[in-house]
């Protein structure tokens, strides 16, 4: 009863390949970009099965003329729009400065979020201040939007005396509970089930706070992502699961995470979870989608997965040179534009902003960052002596220091003495 085997053609293995490599001219004209305003906006009380189609389109609000259109238009007042714009600009200025600080040898590592500022800033604005965020390493915009002091961020980046994390973590791996910002892990996607657990706890306690989490499209391949989705759907956890599809995972394009076959928002469909695919470079779309997902969560409708379709405009980190694996022209060819630019154009179109004010704001942001940097550097930069006391290395492994760590602490102190330090 075997199937017939005669004349079978040999199998072949498909290995994905991005369309553009160094030297190629990037041309994204065939990327399907639905018009702004074209995606429908279901009521938040509708079941997820009623709008699977939203996983395959793009929620967009800002059109090419800078107008906010369609059912997802959040109708924010100009002050809110300007705050949003400024938070994004400040995030970008911060990134620029800290990138440079790393290049100047002031710290070991840095990661920019250039081009993706809307994903964190607009989401942070749509959430309540006490909703808990479980970010990846590229959502510094949340902290900045929520008003976490830049100096503290820099102290962490410099691992200096003032570092709230006592020099223990790699730069940018912030933690700020008071600002609803969970400790960032170096291990990808581990925050996903943690966010679901936090949300489940909040629901079990009859709290009103919800959780939100972010990971890159590359990271969706981790088992943690799946366990989070499974728990989220089973217990209808009040959580927003953000996938930041910035097209690249270090040198691997999104095809290695499955983008050739379907969207990342479609993952939600697989679990019966609400899924939205959003123009991640459209701050108003990100805001509206987040608000909608938050409303679903707060009304016990359960989790929402949002794919933010965006583009990593710069290298993965200070350790990376993207020209080695992708066309240098990609960032500019990217069809969805720059999120700051788009919000700026919108405000100008509204008559609520102009080039001069924008230039002034940029300057102000740069100054604010510079001031903070000066302040932070008083506490020291990495590797220049102004670090946490040596003995602190043994604190916080456990709530109380056990005997073996005390012994090791003493040994280290003796050693420092022997070395004349």
């Amino acid at each position, binding site marked *: 009863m075997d199937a017939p085997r005669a004349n079978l053609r040999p199998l072949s293995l498909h290995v994905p390949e991005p369309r553009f490599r160094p030297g190629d001219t990037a041309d994204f004209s065939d990327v399907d970009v639905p018009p702004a305003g074209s995606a429908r906006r279901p009521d938040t009380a509708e079941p997820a099965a009623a709008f699977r189609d939203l996983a395959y389109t793009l929620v967009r609000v800002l059109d090419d003329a800078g107008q906010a259109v369609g059912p997802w238009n959040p109708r924010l007042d100009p002050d809110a729009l300007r705050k949003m714009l400024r938070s994004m600009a400040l995030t970008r200025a911060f990134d620029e400065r800290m990138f440079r600080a790393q290049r100047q040898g002031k710290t070991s590592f840095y990661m920019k979020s250039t081009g993706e500022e809307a994903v964190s800033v607009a989401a942070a604005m749509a959430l309540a201040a006490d909703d808990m965020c479980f970010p990846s390493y590229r959502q510094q915009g949340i902290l900045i939007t929520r008003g976490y002091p830049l100096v503290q961020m820099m102290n962490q980046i410099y691992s200096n005396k003032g570092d709230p994390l006592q020099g223990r973590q790699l730069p940018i791996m912030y933690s700020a*509970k008071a600002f609803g910002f*969970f400790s960032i892990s170096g291990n990808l996607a581990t925050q996903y089930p*943690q966010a679901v*657990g936090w949300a489940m706890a909040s629901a079990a*306690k009859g709290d009103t706070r919800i959780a939100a989490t972010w990971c890159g499209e590359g990271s969706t391949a981790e088992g943690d992502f799946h366990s989070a989705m499974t728990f989220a759907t089973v217990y209808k956890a009040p959580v927003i699961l953000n996938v930041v599809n910035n097209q690249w995972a270090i040198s691997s394009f999104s095809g290695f995470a499955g983008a050739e076959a379907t969207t990342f928002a479609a993952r939600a469909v697989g679990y019966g979870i609400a899924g939205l695919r959003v123009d991640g470079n459209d701050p108003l779309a990100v805001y509206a989608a987040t608000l909608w997902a938050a409303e679903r969560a707060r009304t016990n409708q359960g989790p929402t997965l949002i794919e933010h379709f965006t583009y990593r405009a710069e290298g993965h980190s200070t350790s990376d040179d993207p020209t080695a694996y992708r066309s240098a022209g990609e960032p500019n060819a990217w069809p969805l534009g720059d999120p700051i630019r788009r919000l700026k154009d919108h405000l100008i179109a509204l008559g609520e902003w102009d080039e001069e004010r924008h230039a002034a704001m940029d300057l102000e942001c740069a100054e604010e960052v510079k001031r903070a940097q000066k302040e932070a550097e008083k506490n020291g930069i990495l590797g220049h002596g102004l670090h946490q006391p040596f003995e602190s290395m043994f604190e*916080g492994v456990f709530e109380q220091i056990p005997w*073996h760590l005390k012994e090791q602490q003493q040994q280290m102190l003796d050693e420092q003495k022997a070395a004349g330090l």
Partner: protein
Amino acid sequence: MSDETVTTTRMNMIQAINSAMDVMMERDSNVVVMGEDVGYFGGVFRATAGLQAKYGKTRAFDTPITEIGIIGVAIGMGAYGLRPVPEIQFADYIYPALDQLVSEAARLRYRSAADFIAPITVRSPYGGGIFGGQTHSQSPEGIFTHVSGIKTVIPSTPYDAKGLLIAAIEDNDPVLFLEPKRIYNGPFHGHYDRPAKTWADHPGAEVPGGYYRVELGKAATVRPGEAVTILCYGTMVHVVATTVEELGIDAEIIDLRTLVPLDIEAIEASVRKTGRCLIVHEATRTSGFGAELSALVQERCFYHLEAPIERVTGFDTPYPHSLEWAYFPGPVRIGEALKKILKD
């Protein structure tokens, strides 16, 4: 000790563990239990039986079959302010969750400078002697003792199991609470060919009904002695005790109870007194926790040692099904080692 601990009942280890969770769920509404089959059914070993009926589905619940998720979600719940007590159905199935335990739970306090903590207690039945084959018999404790930031606890009696589990749940650090499943129903003497014993006449099965703690990090001297110190934990405590009794050796048997942090004082004091040391565990030998114990004893009691420290352990093979009793470090192997140590 408070009044409520005065009345004691005879319990087997499952009942004692169940009682610990019951007591803590009663006292602290933040304590929740979760895991595969732990909710309605009460766990494949019945350790959580009755808890869902008593405390409701949001405090004692079944989970999807993903150990990554069970631990990851527990960490998130802990960050919220709960005290989750997740169960991993068999310790053999803890590996999928290892990253969440090692990179997350164990390091959360440190990396966030105590901004967030992971006060979770991971319960898991471990060890062999039940014809469970390769994937229902392993003893992975050694791996966890190598991980900074996690405590590892292993009880050997119902009394200790309850008191240690309560202390673990109250602990603000992640604790791996490994339950020697071979002695759930009775102390195992190590003789597979003799009738099994129950907890009926063991003093460690007298268990107070209410709240009490057995502090983490403190060993118990099961039997004082002068000839040799035997370091052991879990099931092996009983196998060792039987062997020592049968051979009539005046051994000092130390039940470690907590592997990290270890009760080094008790160990040192004993070995200095006896000058000889045997370490017994069921886990595979190479890089098992016995290696650490041997290294520590050697480092700290070198000038008191009259014979090489010996290790009796599981062999460095997967846990075999049919040859289980040849694999298991039973009375014969322990006896041979004792004879060797006491030779001169």
